[in-house]
């Protein structure tokens, strides 16, 4: 189409809000009791953050890699693709992130987890906790059926939110940020178009961590040389 710029997101979004959130109800029903495994994975992430050693960093990266692959297959490829023609590409993006997280988990220098104390660590830890505890409550806040709850390790948004927190704690290389940040934009735009009150959540998390990384880098930059005075 030579006139792509005349299309708004509403022209391209081919499903309704009830249909979108019904997917989570159907997904939750289909994969239960995988939620218990996802909960254990979430608790393991928290334990890894509290422990903070290199081995814990590897374990956290490996757990997240499994979560990303699971979401790529069970959500994007098997369900979301049924209503969104772009979902197979999202599945590929999530699979790519799986590869990158596997690389992080197995590289020679273990991905050490920075301390969760302090503003940067606190923000990161807070994001992981929000992904685990707050995200499933969004369905209730929006007046939707609790069966539509988005759970870490099962649904994409809480998985991405927890990953952002871990990336911050790992001081991960830039290329590990690309897919999660792109998903923040895609999910935020989709939910905004569906007029969902939680639309701001993931883009806000993405912006917050970007800002945190930017400020941290500024602080680490050596001060300009002072001219001798007097």
């Amino acid at each position, binding site marked *: *189409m030579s006139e792509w710029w005349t299309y708004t997101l509403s*022209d391209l979004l*081919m*499903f309704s809000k009830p249909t979108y959130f*019904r997917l989570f109800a*159907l997904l939750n029903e289909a994969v239960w009791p995988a939620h218990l495994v996802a909960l254990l994975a979430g608790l393991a992430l928290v334990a890894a953050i509290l422990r903070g050693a290199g081995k814990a960093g590897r374990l956290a990266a490996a757990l997240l890699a499994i979560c990303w692959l699971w979401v790529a297959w069970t959500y994007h490829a098997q*369900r979301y693709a*049924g209503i*969104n*023609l772009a979902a197979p590409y999202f599945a590929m993006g999530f699979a790519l992130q799986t590869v990158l997280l596997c690389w992080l988990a197995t590289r020679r220098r273990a991905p050490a987890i920075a301390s969760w104390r302090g503003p940067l660590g606190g923000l990161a830890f807070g994001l992981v906790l929000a992904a685990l505890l707050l995200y499933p409550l969004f369905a209730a806040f929006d007046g939707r059926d609790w069966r539509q709850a988005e759970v870490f390790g099962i649904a994409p948004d809480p998985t991405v939110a927890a990953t952002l927190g871990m990336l911050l704690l790992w001081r991960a290389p830039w290329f590990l940020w690309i897919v999660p940040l792109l998903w923040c934009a895609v999910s935020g735009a989709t939910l905004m178009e569906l007029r969902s009150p939680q639309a701001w959540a993931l883009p806000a998390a993405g912006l917050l961590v970007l800002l945190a990384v930017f400020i941290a880098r500024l602080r680490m930059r050596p001060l300009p040389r002072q001219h001798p005075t007097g």
Partner: protein
Amino acid sequence: MSTHVPERRRILKASLHAMLAGAGCALAPPLPAQQPSLLTRPIPSSGERLPVVGLGSWITFNVGDDAQARAACTEVVKAFFAGGGRLIDSSPMYGSAQSVIGDALARLKHPQALFAADKVWTGAGSNGPAQVEASRKLWRIPRFDLLQVHNLLAWEAHLPLLLRMKASNRLRYVGITTSEGRRHGEIVRLMESQPLDFVQVSYNVLDREVENRILPLARERRIAVIVNRPFRQGELTQGLAGKPLPGWAAEIGCTSWAQVLLKFIVSHPDVTCAIPATSNPRHATENMLAARGPMPDQNLRRRIVADVTKLT
């Protein structure tokens, strides 16, 4: 040739069904005897009559594999046919909508009245035949009545394909579509130069640009007009929700804003059919009622524009 006889019979039966429904005949299912007659308009290139309200499937029928939602869509299609409807429109662009329609038609034992309208939507001309065949299989029908080039995408390749299909009796009508006022200049050029049976455009109380050039040209070139986005993707019905209907609504037999908005569109003499989409069977029934009873005259049409503009 013998293979076309059942098809001809199907078309005759469907036309008879529309006529009976139009006449409010007791044989037409399951309308009350007092029901005002169904307004139909002829397709200029053939004279075949279509009820002025059809059924769209954009967004509303894209429900994936959700069995519960698919069952609701079947109820919508059932209500649509019960109200005398015929034309159902879809596109490969609409996700799972084609398969949902196919599912509904199979469950309803393939209603004879169906006028199947779909589109070809692929940037590569060479993919056109395969896409049309894939769409037909999803609809689970022997052939489409109408195929349209969706948003003029690669029309240079697809239009000759559709015209060849029509020439070889694999298709009955050929059309082109646009939405939201895009590429109207090119639409006009094709209407002037190509042997089109249908053109599909956006038209509603607030978006009336097609009145200036496309609708008069359709009359002149004897092209049927399908109207999409009659409610501006729900924006109009949502904007008018809860606002009391003006007194004039009763004069044209309207009990809802949706009916007013539809009657405004189908009362234009150059419009053949409007295709509102819904996932609610009650709304499908309500929409079909907009094809019945008195229609607004020019004065009332102007008043509808003024009142809706004021209220939204």
